[in-house]
Every structure is written in C-alpha cells, then in structure tokens.
C-alpha cells in the first residue's frame, strides 16, 4: 500500500512537472521583437513602494521615463502598461497595485476610453498573462475575453500556446526559466527618430460619445482611488495619432470637473513641453522616443513635484541601490541602441528579430 502511494505521488509529480515544463517552453517569451508582452510581469520584481504609478497603454509606457523622474525629481514611479491596454485592464491593474503597495498617486492615460468592448486576444494575452493570479486577474480576464477566448486557456496556458510547437526558436529554450528585463520600470525605450509628417486628421465619427462600459470602469477607477485615498490624475499623452477628438476631450474635461479630478491634456501643452516632432518621435508621431519622453517627463515631473508635492526620495539607501541598477541598464540600453543606429541605421542589430 505504501509503495502504491509513493508510486502515485511520483506519477503525479512527474506528470505535473512535465506539463509545467512544456508550458514554460511553449509560452511566448517576448524577449525579442514584441517586447511589450513581458512588461506587466516585470513589475513584481520591483521591491520598492512607489509614490506614483502610471497605468495605461503605449501612450504611457513609451512616453514617460521613470528613470528621468527619479534622477531629476527623486520620484519613485512605475508604469504598469501594455499594448492596447483596455480601461478595464487598467482598472484591475490599479486594484491589484493598490492592494500590493498603496501608491500616493495613480496617473491614468485616457486614450483607452475609446474602446467599449473587448478587442483582441493577442493584446489581451500581453496584458493578462503577466499578472499574478488574484481576484483582480480573474476579473480582468472575465472583462477582457473576446468570444473566441476561454478562461480555461488562461488557467492552463498550454491549451492556448500548444500550437507554438512548430514555431519554437532559440529564445524559447534560452528563456525557459528566466527572463531578461525589457523595460525600465515599465518604460519602453527607443532612441531613434522618425519625424511626424503628414499626420492624418481624424475622420469624422458617427458617434463621439464614449461607451457605457468604458465610463463604468472610469467611474470604478475613480471610486477605487477615492476609497483608498489615492490621488487619481487623468492625462492624455501628447501622441499625435491615434487622433484625439475635441468631443472626446470635452467628455474627459467634464468627467474630471464633475468628479473633482485633475485632467491634463498634454496635446495642448506641446510647446510648453518643448516637443519637436521632427526629433522627438520614433514612429512619426504615434509614440515619443527617448528625447521626447524625457521632455515630457521633465514637464510632468515639475507638476508632480510642485503641484502634487510628490516627495523627493533620493537619499533613501534602498531606493538609491535599486535605481542604480535601473540607471545602469538604462544607460547601457541607450548606448546599445545608439551604437546600432550608427552601425546599422536601426536600433535593432541584424540578428534581432
């Protein structure tokens, strides 16, 4: 009987370990090419308590540099963002963040108000797979799933990624048990520049009204912050595209007024920020490059320090140690990308995908 129990335990252990190993092998690593899928998970590696947490889509994680905010204002911040991060995903990330560390301020970029329904499985995965299991994650999955998705495939990612068996590459083996850092406290860096020329005007829409679902989560986000005594600041990043309509802007202004919130539309402050669209974007106006991100961070850093009195925490030994490592990586990445630019005319070396 004892032997049978032992045999049973061994069989279960081998089976589970085998499944775990195959899952690890087949899940996408996001270590080259599309890096955004690796960003949500990196947050859990940061042991510090943040004063400011930015939550939103690419208009945050490509436009704000937490390293700059730390170096120049002593603001300890993190960007919890991923590609096409929908408002309900941002809400549940905020909920999880508040449970974990209780920041003083949450900055939310409002572009995702334009989406009222679940959009795309691949983007969902990039946001949701990286989250640690919690009620917030379950709720976020429920809110995000498109018709083709199933909760079971989130619980057992092998069922989703099994078909990658014929797409395995070197990275899948190299990053089987670990990941490199791809962001700098959530910031996705690009040093190259591609001037914004002929940015298209927004096409007229039939209906400019943001959807009920989007408003529902914005309201929930406001309530969550209020209940937890967290300052909520709404922002619209200065990206020129996707187009931000005046009608949309007015709705955000009204919402902020009605709820006594700060709303900053950086599109209206481009001159004050000092943005030069010939130099400060790497993709023709969709996202800022390092130069643009640091200009925006400088401008926003002033607001955060002076208007919102976010403390300067330089001098705290643990934080200094932590940020030293991030700064080193930050500088190394700048050097790497600039080196590649000089050598190959692209931030990517030829062997990168």
């Amino acid at each position: 009987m004892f032997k049978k129990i032992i045999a049973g335990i061994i069989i279960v252990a081998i089976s589970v370990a085998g499944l775990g190993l195959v899952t690890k092998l087949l899940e996408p690593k996001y270590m080259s090419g599309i890096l955004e899928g690796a960003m949500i998970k990196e947050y859990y590696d940061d042991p510090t308590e943040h004063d400011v947490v930015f939550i939103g889509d690419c208009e945050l994680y490509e436009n704000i540099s937490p390293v700059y905010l730390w170096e120049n204002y002593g603001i300890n911040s993190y960007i919890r963002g991923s590609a096409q991060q929908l408002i309900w995903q941002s809400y549940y990330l905020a909920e999880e963040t508040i449970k974990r560390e209780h920041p003083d301020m949450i900055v939310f970029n409002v572009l995702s108000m334009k989406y009222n329904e679940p959009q795309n499985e691949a983007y969902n995965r990039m946001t949701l797979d990286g989250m640690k299991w919690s009620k917030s994650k379950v709720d976020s999955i429920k809110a995000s799933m498109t018709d083709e998705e199933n909760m079971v495939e989130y619980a057992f990612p092998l069922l989703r990624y099994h078909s990658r068996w014929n797409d395995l590459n070197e990275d899948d083996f190299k990053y089987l048990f670990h990941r490199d850092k791809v962001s700098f406290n959530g910031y996705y860096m690009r040093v190259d520049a591609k001037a914004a020329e002929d940015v298209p005007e927004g096409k007229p829409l039939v209906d400019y009204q943001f959807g009920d679902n989007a408003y529902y989560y914005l309201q929930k986000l406001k309530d969550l912050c209020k209940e937890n005594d967290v300052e909520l600041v709404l922002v619209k990043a200065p990206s020129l595209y996707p187009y931000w309509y005046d009608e949309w802007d007015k709705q955000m202004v009204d919402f902020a007024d009605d709820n006594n919130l700060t709303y900053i539309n950086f599109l209206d402050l481009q001159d004050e920020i000092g943005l030069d669209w010939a130099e400060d974007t790497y993709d023709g106006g969709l996202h800022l490059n390092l130069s643009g991100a640091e200009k925006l961070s400088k401008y926003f850093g002033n607001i955060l320090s002076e208007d919102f009195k976010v403390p300067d925490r330089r001098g705290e030994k643990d934080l200094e140690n932590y940020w030293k490592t991030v700064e080193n990586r930050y500088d190394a990445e700048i050097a790497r990308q600039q080196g590649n630019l000089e050598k190959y005319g692209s931030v990517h070396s030829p062997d990168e995908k």
Partner: protein
Amino acid sequence: MLFTSYEFIGFLIIVFAIYYLIPKKAQWPFLLVASYTFYLLADPRYLIFIAITSLTTFYAAKLISDKKEAFDVWFKEHKKEYEKEERKALKAKEHSLEKKIFLACLLFNLGILAVTKYTNFTIANVNSLLSAFGRADGISFVNLIIPMGISFYTFQSMGYLIDVYNGKHKAQDNLFKFALFVSFFPQLVQGPISRYHELSETLFAEHKFDWKTVSFGLERILWGFFKKLVIADRILVAVKAIIGEPDTYNGFYAFAGAMFYALELYADFTGGIDITIGVAETMGIKVTENFIRPYFSKNIKEYWNRWHITMGTWFTDYIFYPISASQFMMKLSKKSRARLGNNLGKRVPVYLSSFIVWFTTGIWHGASWNFIVWGLGNFVVIMISQELEPFYRWFHSKVHVAGTFGWRLFQVIRTVLIMSSLRMFDCYRDVPLTFKMFGSIFTKSGLSQLNLESFMEMGLTNYDYAVVFVGMVVLVVVSLIQRSGSVRGKIATLAAPVRFIIWYGLFMATIIFGAYGIGYSASQFIYNQF
C-alpha cells in the same frame, strides 16, 4: 456542447464525480438528469422532441407488450375451448390491434424525423419539378429546427419498438429507465445505435468504482481525443481547401482530397465513438462497438460489416429482412422466377430490397441527393461485386494468388479506393461536381500537375503533414496490434513505467499536437450532423 469542448470535459468531470458519490440506486436516475441537462444545454427546444419520442414509444411498446402478455396468458388457459381455425382468427385479431398501435407509433416518430429533416429537401425537389414545367413560383422553404441526434435516437427507439412488437423482449416498465435508454448522453449525438437488450444490461445496473474499468474508459477517451484532435481536425484544413476550390484542386488533388477525407472521416467518427464508449465505460456501462478496423476490409460487403456496424445491422434487421420477407417480395419472387428463370428471378427481390436499404441509408445520412447517390453507389458496387463472383472464382482457379499477402493487400487497397471514391459524394455535396472531380482524377492527373508546394498552400505546413503522417502510422500500428486482442489489455500487462510513458505520451501528444483552441475553428464531429 461538442465532445472536444472544455464545457464537455467540465460536464464529464462533474457527472463522473457525482455518479460515484451518490448512492448506487440513484446512479441511473442521475444519468437521466445528466443526459437531459446535456440536451437542454444544446437547445431547450430539443427536449420536447426527445420527450415526445420517449413517451410515445414507451407507451406504445408497453401497450403492445402488456397486450401480448395478457393474451398469451388468456390463450394458454382457453385455447382448448377453440378449434384450430378459431384460434388462428383470435391470434390474428389480437395481432391486428398490436399492429395498429405499432404502426401508429412507428409512423408518428418516423414522421417527426421526416418532417424535421426532410421537409426542405422535399420542397426543393418539388420546386425543381415545378420549375421544369415552367412554374417559377415555388413553395417557400420552412424554418424548422432539427433536434440534435434525432436520426440516432429515433432509430434506437424504433429498433426497441420493433423488437417489442416482434416479441424479442418485453417492454421496459419504467418510463424513466426507457427515457434514459433513448437519451443516454454519450451516445445521443453520434451513436452507436444501441439495442435495448444490450445496453440495458449495464445501463440500469449499480456500479461501484473500479479503478481498472475507470482507467480503461479514460484510456479509450484519450485515444478518441488523439484521433479527433491530432489527425481529423488537422487534415480537415487541407480537405476543406481541396473541396472549396475544385477549379484549382482537381485531378491528382481531387484524389488526394478523397484520401485525406478517408483519413479524416475515420479519425473523426471512430474518435467520437471511442469517446462515447470510453465515457460509458468509466461509469461501468457497456456500449456496443461500432467499428472493427474497417480499412482492413477486403471487399465492400466486409467493409460494411466493420464500419458503423450498429447502423448497418439496424438497416439489415429492421428494413432489409422485413422487406425481403414481406408478402409483396414473396409474390415478386415467384413472378420473377417464372418470367426470368430461377437464376435471375431469385435475385430480383434481393436486389430490390437492397436498393431500398441503400436508398434509405443514403437519405438517413443527409437530406440531399449526394447522399442518396452515395447510398445507391454502394448498392451498385455491392451488386456488381456479387455478379462478378463467378468471374472471381474462375480467376482464382487460374491464378493462384488468393490468400497471399500481396493479394490481401491488393484487396484492402482496392476497398479503400472504392469507398474513398464513393465518399467523394459526401465530400463535394454536389452530384455533378463529384462526377466531374472523379473524372478529373483520370483526365487531369499527371506528373506535371503534381506540385508539392500546392499542398503547403492548403493551410497546412510541412510540420502539420508530418504530424498527420505520424498520427496515421500510430493508427495503423494500433490497428495491427488490435487484431490479436485489446490494445489496452496488452498495455495493462506491461511494467508500470512503460504504461505511464505510453499513456502520458499520448496525453501530451494530444495536448500539444491537437488542432484546437484559438487559431483552429471548433470542428463539429461529422456524424453529429445526422
């Protein structure tokens, strides 16, 4: 709820757990609840149809059975009081009443099947006729629901009714037990078409948890999933591409499509039946086997004794034999022998009965002409094969190849090719197009047409074809081993680590190489449509 859906697997786990946790007396009533829940989840409206069939068949069979029994008792006591002729008359009178009940129930339920499944097919044909006579205003089509598995449960119920009517067994006394026999969820949507006396032996019995039975059932389910997900649903992509573009994929590609479809249908249908039998087995219930390695058959007749066995025997027992033995056929036999001679005349009623059986088999598979032509195609091939029997005998007397491996292999390949050709009617679902594509195999095939890159444009990569090929090899090897007994039984005798490697390997292969989830459209089992 598809067998391969997460919902079905979740449903199974819940049913399985409750089945063994509740008192054994409550096991079969619980299965009835589970079966009706399964049906309810598909579409609540379906329940009305299956309930009506269950109720009418139960009461009709019970009435017939009770009357038979009561009459037999009465007759035993009183038969001495009557002369021979009077006894005959009494029996005939009694039988006449039973026959009326029987026919009323049979026609009513077959009527439901006919109306739900064949109304629009009839309208389409009437409209074609009207159009041929210059009437442009046809009859409008009707929007009727076709309850899931109606062909299967109607045939199963009618088989039961016929058996009771023929006195093969007594009617079931418990309405709920009968309702379970009709609706038993693993076999509800794609068969097998079980016989009451077989299924009832274990369906209503009390089952205690037995690890060996349960593990054998789970192994069978896993094997079914492997066939369905790894082989059938993967090659399905190429089958769809070939069928969908007949102008591009003709000639050799049409032949390849027919062969791919042969593989897909086999893996799909037998995979589904494996899951059905496996699910029942985990609960200690024995469901009849429906396949015995049909692609190893040496002729079409043998093939039909090994493929979809329960359907074949149903048609044989409940259509072929009654028609062959009917008074009409007896008279026809007499007349044809008198006019055409004994040799030819005796074949007329047999061929006519076969014709009816194959016509019905065809239309049972689907309300469209391609299925009817497919059915009649089988009839023609079987008849030709029978007519050529003297030639075969002559041939074997001259050429002594019978019994050799080469000859047996030739017979097997010939059968597969003939059946795959006939199945092209099922593939293309259009009779003229099927003939055109079949013709193109002989007129357009050529080495110049053969371009392997074209196969990569059908939605599958070389890796996919490799998976299908390996899957097919595994199928063949398992079938070869199976000839000398149960494969699961043989594996069970191996050392525990070997057993673990085999079953865990199969599980992992199914999980990794299965064509399911996002990127693959959920494919219904082909026989669910009947």
